[in-house]
C-alpha cells in the first residue's frame, strides 16, 4: 500500500483512524462503568454475535467500494441457511455447505449482471432480488422453520477451540483474507478504481463490468457464509431469518469508513464498525435497557459516524 501512503498530517491521521479511536474510547468507558463487560465470556459473546453480520459485511464492503449497493444479502442468508439444512437430507453436510455457498454465489452473479450489464440502479436491482429470494425461501421451507439433524454440522456454529468459538476464528480468517485481496491484489485495486471512476477505469483498458459483477458475487458468497454459520448455530432455519441484517451490514460498512460513493474503504474498518454496533447493544443488554431504545441509539451512531466523515470530505473539497 505504499503507493497509497505518502505524507499524512495529524488531521489526516485522526480522520483515518477516527473510527478506531472512538471505538477504543467507547470500549474503555463501557468497561469502566460495566465491570462484567471485560469478562472473557462476555468478550467471546460479543465476538460470536459479531461473526454473522461481520461475514456478511465483508461482501457489503466490496460492493459499496465498487460503487454498488446490495440490500438482498439478508434474504440470501435466509435462503442459504434453509438450503444448508434442507439439503442435508440428501447429501453429507460438507456437500450441503458447498451447495449453499454456490447458491449465494449465484444470487450475487444475478445481482451483478442486473446492475452492470442490464444497468438497473443497484439498490433497485437488489430490491428485486431481495424480494424474490425471500419468496424462494418461503417456498423452499413451506413457511415453517426447518431443523437440522447433523451433530458435526452444529459444531461450526457452537464449537470452540480452547475458549474461542469457531465462528470467531472463521471471521478473523475471512477478514484477513479479504483485506489482503482488497489492498494487495490487482482485483482489489480494480474494484477500488471502478468505484472511484468507472469510465476512467474503462478507458485505462480494464474490463470494468467483470470487476463490477465480481463485487456482487463476493457479496452473495459472504452472505452465504453468514447463512451457513447462522443455520449451524441455531441448528435450524426460518423463512424470516436475517431480516434486516443487510441494514446492519451496510451500517457497519459506512461506520467503518467506507465511502458511500465508492472507491475506498477497508475490511478492517468494517470489522470495527460491526464490533462498535455490537458492544453498544451488549452494554445496553447488560444494563437492561429495552430493545427499542437500542434502535434509537444505533441510528444516532450511524448518523454521527457518517456525518462526521461526509462533512470532513465536503470541507476537503472546498
Amino acid at each position, binding site marked *: 500500500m505504499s*503507493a497509497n*501512503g*505518502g*505524507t499524512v498530517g495529524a488531521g489526516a491521521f485522526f480522520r483515518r483512524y477516527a473510527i478506531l479511536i472512538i471505538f477504543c474510547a467507547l470500549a474503555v468507558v463501557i468497561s469502566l462503568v460495566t465491570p462484567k463487560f471485560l469478562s472473557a465470556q462476555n468478550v467471546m459473546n460479543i465476538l460470536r454475535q459479531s461473526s454473522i453480520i461481520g461475514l456478511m459485511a465483508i461482501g457489503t464492503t466490496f460492493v459499496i467500494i465498487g460503487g454498488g449497493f446490495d440490500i438482498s444479502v439478508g434474504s440470501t442468508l435466509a435462503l442459504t441457511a434453509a438450503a444448508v439444512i434442507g439439503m442435508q437430507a440428501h447429501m453429507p453436510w460438507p456437500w450441503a455447505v458447498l451447495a449453499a455457498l454456490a447458491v449465494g454465489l449465484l444470487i450475487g452473479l444475478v445481482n451483478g449482471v442486473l446492475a452492470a450489464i442490464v444497468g438497473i440502479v443497484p439498490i433497485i436491482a437488489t430490491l428485486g432480488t431481495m424480494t424474490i429470494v425471500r419468496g424462494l425461501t418461503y417456498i423452499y421451507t413451506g413457511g415453517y422453520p426447518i431443523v437440522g439433524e447433523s451433530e458435526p454440522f452444529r459444531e461450526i456454529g457452537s464449537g470452540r477451540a480452547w475458549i474461542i468459538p469457531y465462528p470467531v476464528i472463521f471471521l478473523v480468517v475471512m477478514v484477513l483474507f479479504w483485506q489482503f485481496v482488497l489492498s*494487495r491484489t*490487482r482485483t482489489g*485495486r480494480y474494484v477500488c478504481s471502478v468505484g*472511484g471512476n468507472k469510465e476512467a477505469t474503462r478507458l485505462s*483498458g480494464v474490463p470494468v463490468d467483470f470487476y463490477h459483477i465480481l463485487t456482487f458475487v463476493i457479496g452473495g458468497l459472504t452472505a452465504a457464509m453468514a447463512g451457513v454459520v447462522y443455520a449451524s448455530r441455531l441448528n435450524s432455519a426460518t423463512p424470516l431469518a436475517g431480516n434486516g441484517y443487510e441494514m446492519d451490514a451496510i451500517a457497519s460498512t459506512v461506520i467503518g469508513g467506507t465511502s458511500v460513493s465508492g472507491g475506498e474503504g477497508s475490511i478492517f474498518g468494517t470489522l470495527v464498525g460491526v464490533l462498535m454496533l455490537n458492544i453498544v447493544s451488549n452494554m445496553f443488554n447488560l444494563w437492561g435497557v429495552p430493545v427499542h431504545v437500542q434502535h434509537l441509539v444505533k441510528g444516532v451512531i450511524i448518523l454521527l459516524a457518517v456525518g462526521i466523515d461526509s462533512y470532513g470530505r465536503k470541507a476537503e473539497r472546498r
Partner: protein
Amino acid sequence: MTDALLRITGLNKSFWNVPVLLDVDFEVRRGEVHALVGENGAGKSTLIKIICCAYQRDSGRIVFDGREFAAADPGGALERGIAVIHQETSLIPTLTVIENVFLGIEPVYGLFGVCRRDVMRERFFALCRRVGFALPPDRKVRSLGPAERKLAEIVKALAHDARLIIMDEPTDSLGGGEIEAFFRVVNDLKARGVTVIYITHYLGELFRISDRVTVLKDGVRVATENIGDVTAERIVKLMLGSTGRGAAGGGTEGSGTPGKGGGPPGGGGELLRAEGLRRGDAVLGVDLTLRRGEITGLVGVIGSGKTELARLLFGADRMEAGAVTVRGGRTARLDPVRAKRAGIGFLPEDRKTQGLIHGQAVGRNLTLAALDKVSWGEILSPAAESAACRELVDSLSIKIAGLGQRVRHLSGGNQQKVVLGKWLFAGPEILILDEPTRGIDVGSKRAIYKLVAEIARQGKAVLFISSEVPEILEVADRILVMRKGAIAGELPRGARQEEVLGMMLEA
C-alpha cells in the same frame, strides 16, 4: 452615437494574474446580429460570461439597455434580459416544450401557485407567431431534434423578455438542412428587432447572417467591422495577428523545436490503419494511417468530430461501420481492453471525468493501466509499484507532495502529466492524445510537447489532436484537418497557419 443596446468600455479581466481581457470596448446595436470571432483562448467565452454576470470583471463599465451593471450585482442573466443559447442545450429534457419555456415565470392563480395553462398556451402561440415558426407545445424536450431544441430555447428567451440573445456555436449540433432553416429563423428575429450576439468558428456562416463582426485576439479587441467591408482572408489575418505567432509554422529549421528527429514524414512503417470509420453524425467515413516514429496532428474546430474519431480508434465507442487494422490484426469491434492489448494508449479529452480517478492517489492513477508490471500474478508488489511511480514522477517532473496525494489537489498541468505517465508506463506502440494541453499552463505545455517528440523518437506512432493551430504546427510531422465529420485534407509539416485555418473554417 448610434442606438447601442449593450456598450462595454475599458473591460479588464485576469485569472491568477494572467490577463484574459485587456481594455476591451464592445458595442452591440439594437436589432443587429453581431458576430464574435477569435481563436480558442482569445477571450470570447470570458467576455460572454462577464456579460452574463457569471464572472466578475476587474474593471470597466457595462451599460445594457440604458442601465449600468454594477460590479458586484447579483442575479442571473435572464432576469436582466440576456439569454444565452449554449452549444449544449440547457433545457430540461423531461419537461415539455411549454413547461420549459415558462420555467420559473409560470402564470399562476392565487396563493398555491396553480398554473394557468390557458394563459400559458395563449402566450406560447403568440410568441411562436412572433418568431414565425411552430413548435409542438406538449412534446417532451427529450424527444425533440437538436434544431427544434434551439428553436425552443429561442422561444424561451423571448418568453423571458430577453432583449439580447447570445448564441454560442449554435450550428454545431445541426445538420445541413437544419442550418439553412436556422439561418432563416435568425434573419426573421433580426427583422423583428431582436438583437443577437453570434459566436462561431465557421467564417462562412458569419457572412450569411451577421451585420457586424468583432475579432478578439489574445484578450484584445483587434477590430470591429461592418460585414460588407471585410473578407474572410482579412478576418483570418486579424484572428492570427500580423506578427509573432505566424512564425510557428516556420519553426522547422529551429534547433530547439521538438518533434524533429522522428524521421522524415512517411518514413516509418505503418502501425495503425483505419478505414471508413463511421458513427452517428460525428464521424462520417474517415480513413487514417498512423506510422512508426511519426506525430500525426489532427486539427479541427470544436464539434468537427475529432474527439469522436479518437474514441473510435481506442474502442471507447462502437464504430457503426469501418474497421481498424493494428499491427496486422484487423477488427470492426474494438473495445478499450482489446485496444490496450493491441498496443494502443488513449489520453481522453476530459481528464477529470475520463482520464483520472480524482479521489485516489497519484500512485494508483499512474499504475492503473499496467498493474501487471508491478505484480506477481494477482498479488501487487508495493515496492515495485512505488519504485515505478517515483521514476515516472521524476522523469515527467510531476510536482506532488507524495505518491499518496490525491490527484484532485494537483494543478491541471500536473494532472495531465499523471494521465500521460499512466500510458507511458503501459508502454503502448500507438498513443492517441486528445487535447493533451487543454487548460494547462505554458510550462507544462512545453514539457508535454517535448515528451511527445521523445515518444515518437522511440519509434512509436502518435496521434496528436488539438483545436489550436499554432500547437499543431509546432508539434506535428503531418497535419490532418477535420471538418464536419470528415478529413478535409492533409498538409505537410511547415504548412502556413492561414492554410490550416482556411481548411478548418471552410473559408
